[in-house]
């Protein structure tokens, strides 16, 4: 630190607690029960996951529910070369994927489990893997395996 240019270190730390609202609550609790819920507007085919309670396109309540099978298509993937604070998986390259679940029109971001990330391709079929111990939340999903 140069005397002429002082730097002041400071940390900002604020805890938050987010209310999910009815649609996300149903989704997160569904994950605990090993179920994957999507929502849409009655009479429209579009389904979103994670579900919305209100469709911003048709400006109607999205209370038409569907349970998804847990298979899907890899829309994209990204490989993190370093460990991450949120995911302390030592020695393993972390692969994130955007998965368009069968029956849904939006993507879910999650981990992709593969030993060979170099062989992944956009369009690869994947299947959701549940964790054995689940509480309501996205961590109830362990990630996706290649089919």
């Amino acid at each position: 630190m140069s005397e002429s240019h002082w730097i002041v270190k400071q940390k900002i730390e604020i805890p938050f607690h987010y209310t999910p609202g009815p649609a996300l609550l149903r989704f997160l609790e569904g994950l605990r029960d090993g179920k994957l819920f999507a929502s849409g507007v009655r009479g429209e085919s579009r389904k979103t996951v994670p579900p919305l309670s209100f469709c911003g396109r048709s400006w109607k309540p999205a209370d038409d529910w569907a349970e998804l099978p847990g298979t899907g298509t890899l829309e994209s993937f990204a490989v993190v070369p370093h460990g991450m604070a949120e995911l302390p998986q030592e020695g393993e390259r972390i692969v994130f994927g955007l998965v368009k679940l069968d029956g849904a029109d939006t993507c879910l971001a999650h981990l992709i489990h593969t030993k060979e990330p170099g062989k992944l391709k956009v369009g690869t079929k994947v299947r959701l893997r549940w964790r054995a111990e689940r509480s309501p939340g996205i961590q109830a999903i362990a990630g996706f395996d290649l089919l």
Partner: protein
Amino acid sequence: MPHKVGIVATGQTKHTAKRTDINLRELITEAVTRALDDAGLRMSDIDAVMLGNMEPFEGFMLPELWSVEGWGGLGKPAMKFNTGGTVGTSTAIAAYYFVASGIYDTILAVGFEKQSEGHTQTAITTVGDPLWERTMMAGAIGNFAVMASTYVHESGVTEEHAAKIAVKSRRNACNNEYAHLQMPNLTVEEVLASPYLAYPVRRLDFCPQSDGACAMVLATESKAKKLAPQPAWIKAVATAHEQQYMGDSPRRLADMRSQRAASQRVYKACGISDPVRDLDVAEIYEVATYAELAMYENLGFCAPGQSGKLIDQGVTTMSGQLPVNPSGGVLATNCIGATAMIRVAEAALQIMGKAGKRQVPGANLALATGYGGNAWTDALILGRE
């Protein structure tokens, strides 16, 4: 010349301490849906959306983009503002300029906040400069208390005067279905018996923390006339900021330079020389009882040192010459990102004659103010013509 701009519709959530039934996106939808229904509009009729909110209060950078489906923003031009307590008025003023400029015809303006999800006093402490102010800052309450102490010292207002403001606001709020704190039986004695949060500010002298959203539709003259039988025309807007540090203003609350400047500007634009006589109603951003008293002076409602007399005489009560905050004001509801916009929306409801039980009969000219940041002020005048 600017195009004439009218507010044609408003929508508010039911403001409460905790909306644990819905998330931020759904909170926004609630206000937007009501505003669109109020105007009989569809989302496709809206040209652009202006939003206001403070990221650190939500713990959310660009919360408006995460919640885009909640405000019907797909395919729309949109812009988000962050100016602290004034953000609701800053957003409304931006919407005004965009319509007045001829760029957009019909604009949706939205302010929103879920205070219950974070720690607003903590986030407000980070309003302070990290080197100069943050270590000592004490959220909004401590900061406000030091200002109030100066005002009490100089003006001679008493705790009873402040308590009367607290009672007026919470009782007015009973006529407002959206207000958070509704206390029909509140008495001066109860206010004076509530504990000091930070001397001289007692618990009932200070605003609550609320979850809530407010939306409005603004339109050009020709559209406004079609959309509302009586639009609330925006007759003047002004913004005035203080210097940058909290201790810069010599007598911060007692002599709010920004508030004097902004209000004088809008008064001049509208030919208002005696606001108590010329205005019919005011919705002002008072975070505490002492702020309302000080603002009476700063907004020219009374001479210096006379604010206590004004409330003693009931001038600013519902039956007085200039009702201030028929909605209950900030003392009844403070969802910061929405609060200043609620002032504008409530003033608009008065002008449109749609204020229900809190209607000031024949309201023709209304003042709405926003207050925030380091003593920043926004001021708007709405009128029937």
